[in-house]
């Protein structure tokens, strides 16, 4: 980069040589930034390849956004709230209040609470994508955590999706339709029975019937 005005040597000024080096670094960084930001929502195979090459820099420094939902919502099924639920041994599965719910702690507007929601969303996403061992690995960790840290022996784990109410419900719906916590607004996305050994080791058996019910659908009832 050619200096337009020779401003070298003054306090707080940059020398020409240094300016050339920094300019080069800045230009390269801006190129990385372009690919890292523009590839957040969709990425072409070319973008994906370039990002793969830039990954040692962009991912390490967390410039790569990795499909974060900066659009906040598209009212897609993946945009709604998700919760992970555990049913302690001896409880009635039909009794909603018997299920232990994650997130179970933290201020709703805080990061602590949101992390549990994101775990639920991830589990739901992996279950629907049939992403190999992902769902069982995660849900087994959840059950093991409940056994070893929470002192609970769950015999079932599930992920439920909390569907959204359309505005029409409020103007013309029944009282039950207007209740956002009515059973009709929940869908089980993933469920598994937990077998816990004497030593606390967990085996999961996926409940297939539930998965068949959990078809993708519009959040509008």
């Amino acid at each position: 980069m050619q200096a337009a005005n020779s401003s070298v040597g003054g306090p707080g000024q940059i020398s020409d040589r240094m300016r050339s080096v920094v300019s080069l670094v800045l230009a390269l960084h801006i190129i990385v930034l372009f690919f890292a930001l523009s590839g957040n929502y969709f990425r072409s195979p070319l973008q994906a390849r370039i990002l793969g090459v830039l990954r040692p820099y962009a991912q390490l420094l967390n410039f790569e956004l990795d499909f974060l939902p900066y659009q906040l919502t598209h009212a897609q099924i993946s945009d709604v709230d998700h919760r992970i639920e555990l049913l302690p041994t001896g409880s009635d599965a039909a009794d909603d209040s018997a299920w232990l719910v994650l997130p179970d702690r933290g201020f709703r507007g805080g990061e602590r609470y949101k992390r549990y929601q994101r775990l639920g969303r991830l589990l739901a996403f992996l279950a629907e994508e049939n992403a190999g061992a992902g769902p069982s690995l995660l849900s087994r960790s959840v059950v093991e955590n409940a056994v070893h840290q929470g002192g609970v022996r769950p015999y079932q784990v599930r992920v439920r999706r909390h569907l959204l109410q359309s505005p029409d419900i409020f103007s013309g719906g029944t009282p039950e339709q207007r209740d956002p916590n009515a059973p009709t607004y929940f869908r089980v996305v993933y469920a598994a029975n937990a077998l816990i050994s004497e030593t606390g080791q967990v085996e999961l058996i996926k409940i297939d019937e539930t998965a068949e019910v959990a078809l993708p659908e519009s959040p509008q009832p």
Partner: protein
Amino acid sequence: MNAVQNYFQRLSHGFSSWWNRFWFEPSDPTTVCVLRILAGLLGLYYLVSHTADLTRWFGPHGLLPAGVVRQPELLGPTLLDGAPLQQASFHISYLSWISDPTLLLAVHFLGILVLLALTVGIFSRLANVLSVVVILSYVHRAPMITGQLEPLLTMLLIYLCVAPTGACLSLDQFLAARRSATKAPRPAEPRWDVTVCQRLIQVHLAGLYLVMGLTKLAGDTWWGGDAVWWLIAHTESRLVDLSFLYAAPLVINAWTHLIVLFELAFPLLIWNRLARPLLLVWAVVMWLSLSLITGLVPFCLSMLLANLAFVEPATMRRLAGLPAADTKQPLAEHVGAS
């Protein structure tokens, strides 16, 4: 032929002149010093929000054991056109090697001390670099439970490493003044690296706003004007129940369109000196209202924090109660000229 040559000569000269003014004109460090304090506080919040659940997430039999997190299925993006992406992962974190609860807590509190040092401005340069390492370690330990906040926080901390953020409003400055003969704090001098730092934050933020605006337009709800309703309808996330707005669909439409308009206008108009104050005030209203309906309070506050990079150092000095600096020309003047 000469005309073409002349054109490219003028283009090259004009661009390099603009580039040098944009990136290297020395500027007052007050704005980046304020950003250091606020980013430090945000980082502190981020770490403290992990404290109570540290063992639950990362401890033995935690929700996300290191072995599970390293599984390729969990380290998205995993699929592209149906084919798995065979790419190496660079999620490197010192927390991945620690599972003992006591050690985990000890390291966690050391991290909090580092962020505290950055916030108060003691050994600012070192504290800044260490803060980046600390926060990135939490991000990379469990990237699947990170959200919109983390990229902003790490971006701020990384760029602040470029500038002397302890030059003012810091313990470093206070201690240097005590050691000096006059016992008075030395006024911070304008520096080129301050400009580079501030510009990097500005450019990155403008890019992020553009991404936010464009990705919104990829869905029907933001075009259709009802996206805000679908945010309000998240009963497990929202902080306030505004579902009574079902009766005012035009308000929902206007709110939705204003958000998109703002996010598309910001990266273009924020460089204009006259439009800037308007956009910054608009940002306050927009992010605070969004935090209420989405429950993404830390993210919305971090956006407001990052917006401060566009506040002129002279204005920031007034807001921080500092005497006016003897600077040549405030950074924003050059921006406004573009």
